[in-house]
């Protein structure tokens, strides 16, 4: 059986892929309402999230250490909330905030620092609920 860390990494890879798809759906669904610059910014976040997802699926990012369990649980919770928020979002400003928060969380995961991950999770949860 795979370890919990492996399972959670897979779950995060899937969630980031879904989050990128949610952003793409928003971009194409609001194509005419968005400016070229806004579309480019959202698309840039999509590519970053897809890259994070692939990195996690590749296991290039190692989430080693027993203490990482609770942090990973927080990542899963925050990413799910971000994806749900993108689906119900009303303003493009909020989409930018969600996408930026997701990218920051992905960066914190890549860094492997538990403190940075914890802060990014809190920020993501706050933005998703905002």
């Amino acid at each position, binding site marked *: *059986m*795979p*370890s919990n860390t*492996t399972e959670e990494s*897979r779950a995060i*890879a*899937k969630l980031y*892929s879904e989050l*990128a*798809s949610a952003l*793409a759906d928003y971009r*194409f669904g609001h*194509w005419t309402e968005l400016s070229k610059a806004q*579309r*480019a910014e959202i*698309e*840039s976040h*999509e*590519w970053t999230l*897809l*890259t994070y*997802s*692939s*990195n996690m*699926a*590749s*296991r*290039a*990012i*190692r989430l080693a250490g027993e203490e990482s369990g609770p942090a990973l649980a927080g990542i899963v919770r925050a990413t799910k909330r971000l994806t749900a928020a993108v689906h119900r979002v009303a303003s493009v400003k909020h989409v930018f905030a969600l996408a930026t928060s997701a990218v920051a969380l992905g960066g914190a995961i890549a860094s492997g620092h538990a403190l940075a991950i914890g802060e990014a999770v809190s920020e993501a949860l706050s933005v998703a609920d905002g």
Partner: protein
Amino acid sequence: MRRRAAPRPSQRVRIHCLTIFVIALTSGCTSPAAVTRYAKSAALTTARLPDVTDALSQSCRRTTSYRLRRTSSEWFGDDSLRAACVGRDAALRTVTRANRVLSSYFAALESLAENKLTDYDAKVDALGDAVGEAADFDKKQVKAIEDLAKFASSRATDGYRRSRLRDAIATQNENVQVVTDALHDILDRDLAQLLENDVAAQTSFYRAALAESSDRDPLTAILVRDAYDARAAELAERSAAVRSLAQALLTVGRGHQALFDARDHLGGKALLATIVSNARELDAAVARVNKAF
């Protein structure tokens, strides 16, 4: 006229005949036809995995190229694409190494079944160590890979032969189950996820290009859409083939389990029927992978 009695066989001849009888009997009881059939199909199945990993490596470069074309106006070369795919390539190499160890085990099993002498392959043993160092598997999986590698590389030097086929199947069964399960999970989830992400990236690339230019140049838009449809169909077929290969690895594990369960009667008809059915499933999966990659 009194008939002459047939001469009684000498003690030496009687012992010789008895020896032949015992060898024939023993050989019949451990007829390795099922093992040979199984090992060949399992080896063919694992032989396809490098094609999948190569394609996924190339797919990463293509996806990175899409990203760079969409997000940057600066020129980029192959070195940029390679740099972006270092993580994926490293993970794929680890998978390929583990798979090669498994493949070598099946080659060893086939050699044993056919009572062949095979060359010592020290590289296989080194592969087991390399997989362990890569740390992309958990400890149990790494140990299974290392044990399989040691067995596969020692098949000639340790005097393993047909008479020890049963012991080989018995001692390596758990390792085969662990490694086939691990490779199944990697294919079914991780590699499938990578393909899914590549599909999403490709769709985004083509869809954005069409949305931006279809009004200005409708004829070009038709060609671009055709190119997208062809590539999307190719990726869909590849995704299905990866899942099929993942299932095939479980079938490989089940086949070895069947050999293990029947290790005292390897020449049994029921086992051969099970293995033939197992091999047909593997052949179908291999055909699907051949077509897609």
